[in-house]
Structure formats: C-alpha cells, structure tokens
C-alpha cells in the first residue's frame, strides 16, 4: 500500500482535521501528517500545494486524493474494513451514518458560538438560544446511541466508530465551554477525552504558537 498522507489544519481549532486524524489513529493505519497553518496570507497557496481541491483535511493514497472528512472516513473504512470504523450490525451502522451525516451538515450555531479551541481553559461559556437547541439535539443523539447501541463499550456504538470521530470536536467543545451533561454523557465525554490519540492531539494543539 502506498503511504497515506493526511493534510490538516491547526490542531487547536481545525475540528474537521481532527475527525479523520483520530479515525486513522484509532484504526492503526500509519500515515504521514502535513500540517498547514490556517488563516495566514500564504495559507491558500500552501493548501493547494498538497490538496488540489483547496481543502483540508485531504488524504492522499498514492495518486488518489480524497477530501471532506466524511468521504475520508468512508475511504478509511474501505481500506481497513476489519477495523470496525462503522458498526457491524446493519441497523446500528445506518444510525451511525445518520448521526455522522447530521454532524457533517448541521449544528451551525454550535459551531459558530462554541468553536473548537483546545487552548481555551475550561470555563463556562455563554451562547445564544439557537446554540442551546443544537446542544440539546447533540445530547439527545448521544443518549439514544448510548442506550440503544452502546452496551458493549464506552462509545456511542460500544466500540470506537466513525461516529465518535465525527463528534470528538463536540466533546472538546462541551468540555472547554463547560456544557453540563448528565452522568451517562459525562462518562462518554471522558471516554473520548481519555483516548491516547485525543491526548496526543490536544498536547500538540496546546504547543502550537
């Protein structure tokens, strides 16, 4: 297999980059990481050097390039299907894809008002009511997944899946902005934060200038 390369943005705030990076780490596929600093004058040119689509994250596998976090996750699932990036049960898999897709295109208020910031000292934040509605919806999704599909492990569908990768940035937001959770969801949040790969990402994020 050709070497995989993942082009990502700043670890402190590029939530879309975290998702496929975490999935790659969790399924144990070796990859080379290329970090492009975002929001700089030369950012666009830098990204285009690696990603013809002009987007990060961007995964290359030999001559093949895949952009968009969800498309990359599906590609990783095809590269290593035995890693269980999606649940093996068809019904659970369908719901895992639904909650992942909802994250992919939704929650604009949550993303805007509680943006991922791994340098933020955890403290209660303030946000408008539309962000509260998004938070409520995330809580409902997590609760339903944990109750219906999560009995075999600490994650949304038991073992770690792509759905956890999709919600990992939300976990960090809830942690950093002091979003209150019930005990069951607190345990889920802590399970994600305790992943060695999440700690590795967070440590690197906090060392960024």
């Amino acid at each position, binding site marked *: 297999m050709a070497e995989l390369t993942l082009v990502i943005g700043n670890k402190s705030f590029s939530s879309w980059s975290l998702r496929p990076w975490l999935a790659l780490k969790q399924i144990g596929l070796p990859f080379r990481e290329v970090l492009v600093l975002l929001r700089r004058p030369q950012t666009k040119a830098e990204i285009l050097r690696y990603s013809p*689509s002009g*987007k990060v994250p961007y995964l290359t596998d030999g*001559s*093949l390039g*895949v*952009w*968009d*976090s*969800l*498309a990359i996750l*599906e*590609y990783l699932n*095809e590269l290593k299907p035995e890693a269980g990036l999606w649940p093996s049960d*068809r*019904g659970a*898999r*369908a*719901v895992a*894809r*639904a909650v*992942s*897709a*909802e994250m*992919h*295109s*939704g929650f604009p208020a949550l993303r805007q008002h509680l943006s991922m910031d791994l340098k933020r000292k955890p403290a209660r934040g303030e946000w408008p009511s539309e962000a509260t509605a998004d938070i409520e*919806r995330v809580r409902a999704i997590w609760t*339903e997944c944990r109750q219906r599909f999560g009995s075999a492990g600490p994650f949304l569908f038991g073992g770690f899946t792509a759905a956890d990768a999709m919600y990992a940035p939300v976990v960090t937001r809830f942690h950093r902005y002091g979003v209150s959770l019930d005990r069951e969801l607190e345990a889920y949040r802590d399970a994600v934060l305790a992943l060695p790969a999440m700690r590795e990402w967070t440590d690197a994020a906090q060392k960024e200038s």
Partner: protein
Amino acid sequence: MAGLCLAIGNKAYSSWSLRAWLAAKHAELTFEEVVIPLDRPESAAELRQHSPSGRVPCLSHGPIRVWDTLAIIETVAETPKGAKLWPTDRAQRARARAISAEMHSGFAALRRHLPMDLKRKPAPLAYPAEVAAEIARIEAIWAECRAARPDGGPFLFGAFSAADAMFAPVATRFRSYAVPLSRTSAEYCDAIYAHPPMGEWIAAAIAEPWTIEHPKP
C-alpha cells in the same frame, strides 16, 4: 426489502428529498412514500413523528430510522441492487464520495439564494458574488468528472451514481434560474433531466397542490 418507508417533503421544493428518492429508485427499492408538505403550521409535528432529527428525508425499516440524505444513500447502497450507486473503481468511488460530501455540507449561498423550485417558470434571478463563486466551483467539479469519466455514459462517472443524485437538485436550480453554463455543464443538466425517475419526480412536483412563495433551501 419489505416494509420500507421514505418520508419526504414537497417534491417541488425539497431538494434533499429528491436526492434520497433518486438513490432509492436507482437501487430498485420498493418503498412506501410519505409526503409531508413543508412550511405549514402542522409540518414540524408531522416531521418529528416521521424523523428523529425532525427533518426529511428519513428512511424507515421497522424500528430502524435513517435520516439525512447522505446516510440514506450509504444505507441504500448496501442493499442487494444498491452497489451500483457508487462507481466500482475505488479511486472513482472515493472521488464520488468526496464531491457528494462537498455538496452535502457546502454551497450554502447557492442553496439560500437559488432554492429548488420546480414550479418556477425558468427565468433569471440576480444573485450575489458568493453564489457565482459556488456555481463556478460546481462547474469545475462537473468538468473534471466529465473529463475523467471511465465509460461513455452521460453522468459524472459515466453511469448514474449517487453523486448524480446529490447534484440533481443543482441541475434544476440552474434551469429554473436560467444560469448561464458551459456546454459541458448544460449537457450534464440535460442528462439529469432525461433520467426517467427525474421526469417522474418533476411531473409529480408540478401536480402538487401546495405552493410556497419563497421556498427555503
């Protein structure tokens, strides 16, 4: 598969519903169709009854409910005749998923300013520069796919795929708002319109009794 139900919005306006419906048709699924007219006082309650996210489309099979177009497409692609929804070549399939995902989370200005409206008499509408930029990006995606297509079919990857289902509502917007297009893009829009299930959907859309003056994206 028995007992499948697809909840959708008005065919004239619900672009996400069109995408999932085209995918289900292409996978030759037999399904019951429930149309929930949007933008009425009772719409929200009806939507919540049919979809955990309160949004359409939503595909149900017994206790399993799959919402969100892209998740429905991936789920339908796992059914016996659904494999053809994605190109067989792995690299092509990865590209098809990338552009489908880009459509799924992007092009917000296009969706806001040029909402799908199959009842509209085609006529130009002025739009801001960010819409023009998104149109240019879509035309670039289409041109790149059409230049690299592995077989002679008229769609983005030759034969009809999930990527075409994802971009079909865009083709209708380009027509409804008389957006000037390259020849390649115009031919691709023609192919979308000539796809038989598309004709079936549009005929049903025009026959719908409900009209929304300013459809939301």
